[in-house]
């Protein structure tokens, strides 16, 4: 009975380990290919581009309600009024970061 599979204990552990590794690798590989075929982010993106082709107008400058906004209210893109209402300024937030770095916090950037 003992010699049906003629391997030493050490060899058995090696073979079992390799088999387990191969199984894990295959499982992972199958899962990856499944995920690639079933790419959820891609599905959402594709839905967006399908909807784009169904719209009456495809270009922003053709939107009648946008034309009305400029005709009645803002006059033209980047006008003084447009700048007042639709543009902004940004804040340098690096001082807060410097405080963190001074405390020894390690970041990726």
């Amino acid at each position: 009975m003992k010699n049906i599979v003629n391997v030493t204990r050490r060899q058995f552990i090696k073979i079992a380990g390799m088999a387990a590794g191969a199984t894990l690798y295959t499982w992972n590989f199958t899962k990856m290919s499944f995920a690639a075929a079933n790419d959820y982010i891609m599905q959402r993106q594709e839905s967006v581009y399908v909807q784009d082709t169904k719209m009456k107008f495809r270009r922003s400058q053709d939107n009648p309600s946008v034309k009305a906004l400029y005709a009645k209210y803002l006059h033209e893109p980047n006008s003084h009024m447009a700048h007042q209402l639709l543009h902004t300024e940004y804040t340098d937030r690096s001082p807060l970061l410097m405080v963190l770095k001074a405390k020894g916090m390690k970041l990726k950037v």
Partner: protein
Amino acid sequence: MRKIENVQTSMNAPSWGEYENAFFVQVDQTKCEGCGECESQCPTGAIQCIDGDDGPRTVVNPAACVNCGQCLINCPYGAIYEGVSFVEEIFSALKDPDKVVVSMPAPAVRYGLAEAFGHPTGTYSGGKMFAALKKLGFDHIWDNQWTADVTIMEEGSELLGRLTGKVKKPLPQFTSCCPGWIKFVETFYPELIPNLSTCKSPVGMLGTLCKTYGAEIIHTEPKKIYTVSIMPCIAKKFEGLRPEIADSGYRDIDATITTRELAYMIKKAGIDFNSLPDVEPDTELGESTGAATIFGCSGGVMEAALRFAYEAVSGQALESVDIKAVRSRNGVKEATIPVPKFGDLNVCVVSGLFNTIPILEEIKKGKSRYHFIEVMTCPGGCVNGGGQPLLPDVREASLFKHIVARINRRFNMRKAV
């Protein structure tokens, strides 16, 4: 704490301007298993171990966090919670007869919302979304896609100004729609702030226009109008609290919720979403084009801007409005678009903030050949935003990665001994 579409959410609604110290996402220490998936997803390194490099993670300081929520949607244990929610405030505003509540849903919301009601991933549900907003009691159904079109007019014109030298600002111009990206530049690359388009994001524009142009159209005092920004995004909550978003003379964005929170509100109000009819938004501040709906994808803002800029520069119509060269699933995509009367327009589309770093370093050295760069924080763009319904395979996939990581860690520990 409340469970909103499988995400623990704190009902903390900070007052306007109180955003610098707020944790928009944080780790529940009692649930964290220390697998490190969040740390690998985080573009800045804000989420990490408090001691050593093993054990529970935490968002150490909000100053380093761009609030994108990629950690949250990728956590295999549901251990990360949202720290800010305006859901209760909106429910009371909807009941208040003195408030005129208006909706501002982002393009990507309508490609994620239906998933919370059992539909397949990516199902378009724009019509039902507007119907649901009406049923919830919104007084005017205005749409953020309308200002996505306005953004193209403003940002496209700004780009033309920079290209011709009329606008005294440097090239390349960066897009400015993504709030995670804006905070990233402000914090980590402040020297490149001049490269950011000065345009507000579409919802920043709509908030202002609701209380100025919109108020005139509906003959209502601006102070009565309550604007609700509905986003696939957690970082938009930070944007809504910015004190400078007040060009109407009032607070432009009164409340911000995610796609998940909208789904929660629809369910809580007892609305049968699937049997709703398809409804259109109110025309004046709601009509939109294909260029607006693609804002939700990485490459979408670029394509929309090119549909405008190409014709504005060359005076010629595009052969086809489909500019597939700039559509991007993930990472970096660059393209050169020959524009008559200008020459070659070099553009670049990036999603995943980590991918911007080599490009930004090049710009700092003055070596960049690009004219226009679109950046979105979330891989693939807003459709994969931190505020979208959780994707069905994400938790499982991360769990698998976690098992492999655990084996590796054990192996390494043994080697060390």
